[in-house]
């Protein structure tokens, strides 16, 4: 059983690998504009027997069939949305490499942006709890500037003090 499954995977790999198949001249549509549309659709449609490969890349026979279906539909004047609907009615949402924006996929689509918002909010709240930073008063600023100037006049041969000075300034 294990061997069989392994073989199936290996076979699928062999079938799917290889040069981008969709450009095969024997399959092309005569109208270049339609062909461009077909190619861009191919990139969004999954070859069902391969691992996450679009039918644009896959050399599997099934991918060739799907490409033929898409090209036929485009040649028959269907819109991109109609072609997608036709494919999902037949094969389910699995065939789309770009999942639909639906309640079931809300986590998938909104997760990344929610992470930014929640993460940013958490960072701000945690910072507040730490108390934030009170800016230096004008007197403190001028004292700091004076100190920094003083340190800059230290002769260059005194490397250690110079470094300490720089580090103090840098931090």
């Amino acid at each position, binding site marked *: 059983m*294990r061997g069989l*499954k*392994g073989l199936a*995977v290996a076979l*699928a*790999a*062999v079938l*799917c*690998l*290889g*040069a*981008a198949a969709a*450009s*095969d*001249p*024997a399959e092309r549509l005569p109208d270049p504009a339609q062909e461009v549309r077909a190619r861009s659709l191919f*990139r*969004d449609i*999954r070859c069902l027997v391969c*691992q*996450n*490969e*679009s039918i644009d*890349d896959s050399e599997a026979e099934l991918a060739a069939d799907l490409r033929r279906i898409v090209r036929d539909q485009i040649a028959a004047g269907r819109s991109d949305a109609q072609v997608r609907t036709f494919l999902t009615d037949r094969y*389910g*949402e*699995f*065939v*789309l*490499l*770009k*999942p639909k924006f639906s309640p*079931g*996929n809300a*986590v*998938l*689509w909104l*997760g*990344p*942006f929610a*992470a*930014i918002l929640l*993460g*940013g909010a958490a*960072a*701000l709240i945690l*910072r507040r709890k*730490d108390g*934030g*930073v009170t*800016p230096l008063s004008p007197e403190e600023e001028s004292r700091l500037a004076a100190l920094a100037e003083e340190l800059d006049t230290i002769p260059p041969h005194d*490397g*250690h003090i*110079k*470094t*300490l000075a*720089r*580090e103090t300034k*840098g*931090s």
Partner: protein
Amino acid sequence: MIAELGAFALVLAFALSALQVGCSVLARLRHDAALRGAGEGAAAASFMAVGIAFAALVTAFVTSDFSVSNVAANSHTDQPLFYKVTGAWGSHEGSMLLWDLALTGFGMAIALMGRNLPTGLKAVAVATQGGLGLLFIGYTAFASNPFLRIAAAPIEGRSLNPVLQDPFFAIHPPFLYSGYVGFSVVFSLAVGALVEGRVDAAWARWVRPWSLAAWSLLTVGITLGSFWAYYELGWGGWWAWDPVENASFMPWLAGAALLHSAIVTEKRGALAGWTVFLSLAAFVCSMLGAFLVRSGVLTSVHAFAVDPTRGVLLLIILGIAGGGAFGLFAWRAPKLAPGGLFAPVSREGALVLNNLFLAAATLTVMLGTLYPLIRQALTGEAISVGGPYFGLTFGPLMVACLLIVPAGPLLAWKRGDLLGALQRLWVAAVIALAAGFAAWFVFAPKTAIAGLGVGLGTWLIAGAISEIVVRSRLTASGGRQALRRLAGLPRGAWGMTLAHIGLGVFVAGACVESAGKAEMAQALSPGQSLKVAAFTLTLKDVGSFEGPNYTAERATVLVKGPGNPAEMTPERRFYPATRQATSQVAIQRHGASDLYVVLGESRTASGATAWLLRVYWNPWARLIFLGPLLMALGGAISLSDRRLRIAAAKRPARAPALEPAE
């Protein structure tokens, strides 16, 4: 005999890992130096034992000992010696052994090189590393043993998968695994810090070089794999958002976040809890990747093993190590002392923003990879997540993240001057905008992606150079003094600059390649020609010849166009041992761009034989691989910085660097 020696050494390594855990835990509890030394000795011995096992496996491959099942499945007497050796890690079992080798090697590194670590922290870290060894070596020895014999040895082996018989593939796993497993060191150090309840600058000084080393190795590993896919698989692409690629990308992103947050923890003592969390997360992502690739939950061209029992075992390992570590984090992290304060506009603030984006990017890749599995498990509905999804989610997050990169290093710690930083960057901004618009006008199909990519890439490169110029104070103090200042800059600063330049190079290359790629395929009989971009390619003839373990058809294609005429010779190879055909792509490099020719199958139509020739023009494609190599080189240069090798506790009598690092 040699296989039995290997199997014995593997079980010995398992026992030594157990000893390593036992001695180190006792040493920590009793504060006993002798026990601690014993634990460290066991760590070194465990590495040696795995080394012997690994050498035994390589020997079995080199001598074509087909009574060993793993050799019979992955080698062949006709295979060149080089591929016999690399076949040792071309299978699930062999690559697990390579993983163990790296894991125990890093364990030994902590034991031998961590002299400056506080003894308690070190004992816990060595124990944790031993615990990981126990899990993974145990798994290899008892569930995935590469030394199993078969009763009736076949006369000939089944050969290594031909697409893996390639010099780049051969060195890709060792780099990749050193990177993956390199994060185990920071994982162990983080567990140590949580147990000890102390995260300080000395700890962060340890985490930084190790995360930098692991991340740089992982960068090289992923780049090699991507380059291999580019020229060996002959599909003209280099990244497909395949779940297995994502599995290597997650630890890379988490590691990149860790590199940056560890700087804040080291310099300012802030973000301690977050740095600890990332240290755990990076290695958990590595283990998640190992689980995804090997368990068979994903069936991919990369996935070696489709075996549910192994999958369950790996999931248990992931659960023990990951669950234990995050549980410990939840329990102990609140006890960590809060670090230095900083204003939102400061270098800390910029690095927090960087971490926010990198963490969200990691989460995006994780969602895209795991969500289909989770949704199918919960509702039974199958969905697919591919490139278009990542383009819409990961893409904008990364653009936002990259935009702030040049500003970070120009902001001061604690409280920065955003206006000042932006004033110093206006030259870079003007150059970047000009380059972006120029790219938008120049590249033949006018696409926003090319303009955006070049603009963003230039922004990163020019921004990194601006920072160096600002540091040299060229405008204020004149050329000679500026040069002296530059010579005095620590290597860490140069490493960062180079890594950021590499990032820019990559972004420009990736965007221009995907926007400006031209493709043409045609069935040609000898004498016929096709056109792609500025080139005309004529098929001269197709001959056949025999290689060491394959037969091949080789086409001679005459190319006319810029920098030509020249001949290109793409091949199509057939490996009888596995009955597989592969293509040997011919690539002609033009600066950073590639003319890429693939020979397809032959077709006979109306009496004449024609060969399908696929030709791609991949503008700036080489930058995609050059950029990450520059990033890894930047990491290596930073690693050579003296300050990273000197523990914070021991201050040198005379500080070597003239300038602060960041």
